[in-house]
């Protein structure tokens, strides 16, 4: 599907989206603060309850409940709280505890590196091949446009490993290992990154795999496995949500030439075409950190995520008005589509069916539009 838009239309679309953003910004206040503190209270409550239950982990129901509570706590911490706070969504509150430059999250990746690889690289260069390192994370072939080579025969295996070890993959992301292998970056250049990673990861490991197990005395192994399980559950969940954000079929990728000197409106268009939403209930949206509203998140990364469901109908209406796709589907559908792609793209042919062809936008220069 190709949508034809004039430069003028793209600028108008940009202004309409700016207006939506401004309306939300003007309305930010106590309700948003109360909301995020409510989520934090739930997260910390689940964490404390979970860790406490594990002291009685010899009772299977308590082990299960404790592990489940801790898993939920880590999911909330990383997604609805951590990811969103680090985007600066709550900086307007001027609360040092929820400030993008000061917040740390319950995962091994140092917040500072995440802000660089995610907020800057991924959100600025979303879905631009060769610039957005989140396309396949340097290990997978996830878009047809990535050139095949025999290494990609292992695509499903790499994806599985990345899913299971997701927090470590996220931590290693900023090292740009693929560029080191390609000889474009030296190991020595990553020295200070590795120092920060060691500092952060050692504390995380110490807490989850030594201190809490040791405190639970004879339940050492039981607590250790529970903590490892919680980290794993969080890994599986975060991986699944994040992969559904940009990799289902029907999401567009872009080239560096296409996006040179792009206007603000064109940037918005790229964000909309390069993202996909997941439909679901309220609790699902919260547990996904509202990344189920990936399209709205990419348009307005610094608006508090609880506002995304609110603006989604307007964004969707704008997509319809301008003939742009608004990619949304249930988790099972989006996830099936992602894994299907991971398997298919292990082979050189990839897909060429109509449904799998990403949409494109043809920009009609204003002079030509006027002449026509």
């Amino acid at each position, binding site marked *: 599907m190709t949508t034809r838009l004039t430069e003028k239309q793209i600028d108008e679309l940009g202004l309409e989206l700016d207006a939506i953003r401004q309306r939300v910004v003007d309305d930010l206040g106590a309700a948003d603060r109360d909301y995020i503190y409510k989520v934090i209270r739930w997260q*910390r409550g689940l964490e404390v309850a979970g860790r406490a239950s594990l002291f009685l982990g010899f009772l299977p129901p308590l082990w299960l409940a404790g592990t489940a509570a801790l898993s939920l706590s880590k999911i909330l911490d990383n997604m609805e709280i951590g990811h969103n706070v680090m985007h600066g969504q709550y900086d307007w509150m001027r*609360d040092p505890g929820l400030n993008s430059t000061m917040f740390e999250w319950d995962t091994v990746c140092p917040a500072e590196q995440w802000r660089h690889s995610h907020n800057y690289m991924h959100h600025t260069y979303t879905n631009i091949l060769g610039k957005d390192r989140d396309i396949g994370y340097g290990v997978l072939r996830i878009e047809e446009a990535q050139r095949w080579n025999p290494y990609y025969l292992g695509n499903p295996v790499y994806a599985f490993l990345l899913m299971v070890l997701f927090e470590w993959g996220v931590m290693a992301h900023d090292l740009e290992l693929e560029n080191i292998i390609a000889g474009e970056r030296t190991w020595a250049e990553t020295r200070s990154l590795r*120092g920060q990673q*060691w500092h952060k990861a050692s504390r995380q490991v110490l807490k989850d795999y030594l201190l809490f197990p040791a405190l639970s005395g004879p339940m050492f192994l039981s607590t250790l496995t529970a903590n490892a399980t919680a980290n794993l559950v969080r890994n599986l969940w975060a991986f699944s949500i994040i992969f559904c954000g940009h990799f289902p079929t029907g999401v567009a990728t872009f080239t560096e030439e296409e996006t040179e000197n792009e206007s*603000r409106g064109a940037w918005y268009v790229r964000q909309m075409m390069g993202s996909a939403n997941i439909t679901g209930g309220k609790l699902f949206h919260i547990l996904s950190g509202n990344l189920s509203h990936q399209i709205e998140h990419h348009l307005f990364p*610094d608006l508090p995520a609880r506002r995304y469901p609110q603006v989604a109908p307007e964004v969707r209406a704008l997509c319809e008005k301008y003939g742009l796709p608004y990619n949304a589907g249930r988790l099972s559908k989006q996830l099936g589509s992602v894994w299907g792609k991971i398997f298919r793209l292990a082979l050189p042919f990839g897909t060429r069916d109509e449904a799998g062809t990403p949409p494109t936008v043809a920009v009609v220069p204003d002079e030509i539009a006027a002449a026509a």
Partner: protein
Amino acid sequence: MTTVVPAVFRRRLSPLAVVEALATPHAVDRYLELVNPMLTVRDVRAEVTEVRRSTADTVTLTLRPTRQWRGFEAGQFVQVTVDVDGVRRTRCYSPAGSQHRADGRIELTVKAHARGLVSRYLHANASTGLVVGLTQAAGTFCLPDPRPPRILLVSGGSGITPVLSMLRTLCDEGYDGDVAFLHYADTEDDVAHRDELRALAAEHSAVTVVLACTGHDGGDLSGYFGQEHLDAVAPWHADAETFVCGPPGLMTAVRDLYTRNGRAGRLHVEDFAPAPVAVETAAATGALTFERSGTAVDNTGTTILEQAEAAGLQPEHGCRMGICFSCTQVKMSGCTRNVRTGETHTEPDTEIQLCISVPVGDVAIDL
């Protein structure tokens, strides 16, 4: 790699270090505050235990600080933080009570400014049980130690607080030198703490309290500060240390007179520096100062990020379009305009995104 031992092992293994290692990556106080905001291990906070509104536009709060509070010296100020419509706001207030107060509580008197955000909020909403953020006391507007033999305290309006604290502290210390307290207000009814002032004067023979009313008749004196007031209140003022706090007009009048009399060296002043006013001009004016690097440039009207780079600095940054928050830095003072929204920001010590902020007049950045 230089560090191979996690910090928790290198530090002496205190119970607090273990608890902090268990709470990592969050601070212990981020957990405790959800149970009881007054339960803190590091943060200083205070709970409002009493609220009085002794005049129409002031509110007097008594605060019980958390155990980290180290006390204050009369004349110093604290920074109080409250959430107003979801946004954390910090303002300076000078405790008005004696520094020797037995229960260690802090008394603040806040004057509600017509368009003031925090002062109006406190005036309208402060109630017992409210927990506010607090900093340790700071400031050099203090009585010398040992106390000088003669002390003149002059204040106007809400500037009464630091000098009242001095007066009460001196009384608690059984100070036996001469002390005069000269306060300016519109009418006598506008004087917060009027009854305490009268009571102190009645109890301590060495203390003179004079209320001067500038608006109407009444009070012990009328009109504005000048040599006559000085002579009437403290004939010995020539050998006294003088402490002044009040509105700009009063401060200027006192400063001018003392300079003329050649006694500026014995004058101590405290300024409740009002927030800078946003002046929107088409032309770029003012100086842009990067405090940490000790660089100052003439404002060219472009974004602060661009001006910093032009000055040879290399601040961290990313998208250059206001979305990634990599370039966030603390604006220490001055007014900036957000080029995306057109909004101006005048509050000191707040974080701004350098890539979408331009200076409006003089601005200082912690960079």
